[in-house]
């Protein structure tokens, strides 16, 4: 590895602009004549719209227009869609209710848009939005998914009887699984709730729609993790404009965590409203709007049975999950509790029979979709809480029970689709236990006991699947898109290089890591490499960044394009030096003839490609190559997390004494950036386990956690510094051996923390978030 190549801890190229206030986020964009949108939103969780009177609002200062959903329908703007088809066990397709960008007859959650005001200033737009009078006929609401399935509950969509979207199963047959459970020496049974979360990227969503009447062309600046997918969906399904008439730009984006994958009503409305009003229209969410309308995450209610033989080997696993989808099916919602969840229920363990059943349910709450980890944290929490509980019931150490059941040979085919390609689960377990000084825990517990504190330790062994692919496979499972990635490498005539990528960076440091690949390949400084992304006019097509796919998929596409550039550059260099192409090596910024002192500087190879004065016979001028990379399998990052806590039994407050992460991410391009991803993921996982939870009033459907004064975000003093290490086995299925690191922290950490707290207090009955009130009650219930 060079100082800037693969494996180097290179400081980020993008940092300077962020540190000096020169980042360019969507809300920073200003275009001539720009006006501002404010949405009128439903204050009711469920109601029929009897009428909208916007006459007073229309006459208010600065108001340019008040637009409604009926006009949008008349203009042919389509319904929002869910892009992954799931079929129920009976073969019927999922029951998708209509989702209008602006509701015109029924509102189904607090925050559902009913009108939009465009005005000269944000203040004037908001004043006028408050003056729009909507006549609602209130309807009964239901917010809890288990309740929504009960008879005689409020119905959200006529398409989905009983609020049931699908009833789906995966894995071993139910009868066979039941038989294995009936024959078991021991069965651990649990009810597991995975709490609902708000993603809370620090940059609120925003959109700026610019319609150019002269060219009948639209430009959309938006806070997106995947601008090309946004363009595709807005063209193909929402009929905003054909693709060649719609440019989508996702500039600097302030965090996503999944919430900015989806195409929301607001960007569609801004584009449509720009044409309707003849002015560019900008909307920026405030934090309460974000809590109300950003897609939430998790919200699963599950029961699980895990069966063991007399030797403590798992013989069967049966899981029944109810997933709350909220009021509408968001873009990837259907895939989350199915192919991103049930497929991971084998964990790191050799389980011969797994049966999973999942029911997806409408409720009068914000839509629920992928949030950091998306399905995999839910699977890991369920499995690792069950493993810990089983170890306690069986009276053996949690490490021993896991070791006994680890998968140890690869490839390994699970009963739930996945074929694990590589891993060494024992290595991460041992590394984590060593780092945490697991052996010394007893002494630390005794010491804490003398101070009146309850100390506990818990572990979690997670696996996840990243780089969702191959495209043909996901297509056969219902995906509406392919999940490849594209790249183009353009070598300029002076030897500097632009890499165009369909991945999108919103904190992941692509401008640095992607440049490191090029530096590694040609020995050129990373400052001579620029990464271009986030603009559909610059990059032809791409699938964006989510599911930890930018490394395993996005960088693999760059490698393929680099291969082509290198091959052509070698031909040119061989021709210039009158050598054999096979003898050329490119390193340290020059092309060399191996075994001789003949060299040509890199820039001269590039220049020769563009002057075209002296190229091999028949060669086209130029040095620019593109590639599409479609993976041959998922990748399988895995690891072991250990958390040690100290609980104050008087107050119920949990303090995290130490948090250890031992991960296997395959090969790593920039360890500094990878560690940063793990830190952030762990913080979100600790947030879920200790602090965070979206709460709706069950009667009225009002969101009770709609600001940072009500929703407990993890702050610096809630968290310790983390101990992070890697025990890597390269991924055999992509050219860089990368597995992906973006979500692991959020996947592996919640069960480690809850296992530690329940160990400390001696009461296993504890739900997330484990607030001091709940922990205090659990401590007292145990005594």
């Amino acid at each position, binding site marked *: 590895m060079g100082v800037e190549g693969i494996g180097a801890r290179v400081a*980020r190229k993008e940092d300077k602009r962020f*540190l000096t206030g020169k980042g360019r986020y969507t809300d920073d964009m200003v275009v001539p004549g720009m006006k501002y949108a404010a949405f009128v939103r439903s204050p009711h969780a469920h109601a029929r719209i009897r009428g909208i009177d916007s006459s007073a609002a229309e006459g208010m200062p600065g108001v340019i227009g008040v637009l409604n959903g009926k006009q949008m329908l008349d203009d042919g703007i389509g319904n929002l869609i869910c892009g992954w088809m799931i079929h129920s066990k009976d073969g019927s397709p999922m029951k998708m209710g209509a989702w209008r960008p602006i509701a015109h007859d029924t509102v189904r959650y607090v925050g559902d848009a009913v009108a939009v005001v465009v005005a000269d200033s944000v203040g004037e737009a908001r004043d006028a939005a408050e003056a729009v009078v909507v006549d609602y006929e209130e309807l009964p609401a239901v917010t809890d998914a288990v309740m929504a399935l009960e008879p005689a509950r409020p119905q959200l969509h006529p398409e989905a009887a009983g609020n049931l979207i699908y009833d789906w199963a995966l894995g071993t047959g139910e009868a066979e699984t039941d038989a294995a459970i009936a024959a078991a020496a021991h069965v651990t049974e649990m009810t597991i709730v995975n709490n609902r979360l708000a993603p809370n990227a620090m940059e609120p969503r925003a959109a700026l729609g610019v319609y150019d009447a002269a060219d009948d062309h639209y430009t959309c600046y938006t806070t997106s993790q995947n601008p090309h997918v946004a363009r595709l969906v807005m063209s193909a399904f929402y009929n905003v404009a054909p693709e060649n008439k719609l440019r989508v730009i996702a500039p*600097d984006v302030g965090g996503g965590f999944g919430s900015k994958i989806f195409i929301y009503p607001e960007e569609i409305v801004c584009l449509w409203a720009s044409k309707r009003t003849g002015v560019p229209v900008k909307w920026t969410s405030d934090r309460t709007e974000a809590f109300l309308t950003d897609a939430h995450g998790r919200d699963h209610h599950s029961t699980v049975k895990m069966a063991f033989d007399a030797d403590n080997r798992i013989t069967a696993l049966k899981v029944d999950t109810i997933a709350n989808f909220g009021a509408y099916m968001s873009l990837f919602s259907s895939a989350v509790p199915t192919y991103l969840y049930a497929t991971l229920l084998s964990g790191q363990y050799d389980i011969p029979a797994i049966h999973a059943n999942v029911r997806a349910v409408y409720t009068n709450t914000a839509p629920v979709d992928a949030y950091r980890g998306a399905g995999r944290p839910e699977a890991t929490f369920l499995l690792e809480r069950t493993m810990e509980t089983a170890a306690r019931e069986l009276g053996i150490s949690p490490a021993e029970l896991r070791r006994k059941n680890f998968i140890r040979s690869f490839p390994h085919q699970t009963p739930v689709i996945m074929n694990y390609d590589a891993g060494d689960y024992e290595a991460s377990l041992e590394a984590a236990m060593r780092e945490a000084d697991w052996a010394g825990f007893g002494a630390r517990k005794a010491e804490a006991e003398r101070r009146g504190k309850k100390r506990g330790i818990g572990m979690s062994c997670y696996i996840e699947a990243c780089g969702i692919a191959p495209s043909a496979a996901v297509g056969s499972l219902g995906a509406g898109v392919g999940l490849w990635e594209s790249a183009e490498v353009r070598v300029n005539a002076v030897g500097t290089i632009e890499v165009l990528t369909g991945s999108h960076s919103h904190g992941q440091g692509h401008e640095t890591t992607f440049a490191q690949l090029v530096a590694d390949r040609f020995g050129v400084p990373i400052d001579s490499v620029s990464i271009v992304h986030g603009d559909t006019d610059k990059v032809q097509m791409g699938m964006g960044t989510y599911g930890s796919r930018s490394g395993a998929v996005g960088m693999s596409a760059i490698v393929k394009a680099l291969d082509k550039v290198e091959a052509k550059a070698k031909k040119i260099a061989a021709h210039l030096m009158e050598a054999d192409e096979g003898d050329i090596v490119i390193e340290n910024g020059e092309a060399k003839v191996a075994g001789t002192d003949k060299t040509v500087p890199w820039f001269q190879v590039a220049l020769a490609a563009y002057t075209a004065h002296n190229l091999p016979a028949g060669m086209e001028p130029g040095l620019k190559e593109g590639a599409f990379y479609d993976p041959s399998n998922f990748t399988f990052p895995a690891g072991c997390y250990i958390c040690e806590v100290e609980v104050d039994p008087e107050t119920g407050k949990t303090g995290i004494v130490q948090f250890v992460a031992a991960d296997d991410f395959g090969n790593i391009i920039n360890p500094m950036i990878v560690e*940063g991803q793990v830190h952030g993921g762990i913080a979100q996982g600790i947030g879920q386990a200790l602090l965070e939870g979206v709460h709706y009033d069950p009667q009225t459907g009002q969101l009770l956690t709609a*600001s940072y004064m009500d929703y407990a975000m993890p702050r610096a003093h809630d968290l310790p510094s983390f101990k992070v290490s890697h025990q890597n086995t390269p991924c055999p299925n992509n050219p860089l051996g990368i597995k992906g690191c973006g979500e692991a922290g959020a996947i592996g950490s919640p069960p480690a923390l809850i296992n530690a707290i329940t160990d400390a207090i001696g009461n296993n009955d504890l739900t997330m978030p484990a607030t001091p009130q709940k922990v205090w009650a659990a401590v007292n219930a145990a005594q």
Partner: protein
Amino acid sequence: MTKVSMTVNGRQVSGDVEDRTLLVHFIRDRLGLTGTHVGCDTSQCGACVVHMDGKAIKSCSTLAVQAAGSSITTIEGLAKDGELHPVQAAFKANHGLQCGFCTPGMVMAAVDMINRHGGNLDEATVRENLEGNICRCTGYHNIVKAILAAAAEMSAGRQAAE
């Protein structure tokens, strides 16, 4: 409308504002200094932190008229002559930022924290003092590291100068 004048990053500025105009909107929309961000509207997240007369304040809960006559420093005014401030440099060296959205407020809060505590900062103090700044990307690990590194460097610099 009220006319307000203030010094921002060493430059005298003035403008007519509505009484309800927040300082952050005056800075962002009138002055075009978009490095200061709005993350929460409730004075919790700290993405909007600037310095008013040398002290960190939240510009999302300060009216522009309250800042009349004051001297404001925003993230754009921190680096001098193209050289990053030691806190900015430490954030870069320690990977104390990812998406960059909370970063300007974090850096301004960190400068203020170091000004108040000098070289007497430890991890617990830094974490307590970051109460008013939320980051969703970094888990704070590297932010804390960066602030401690900058505090040590600035304190060493002061001692060398004395």
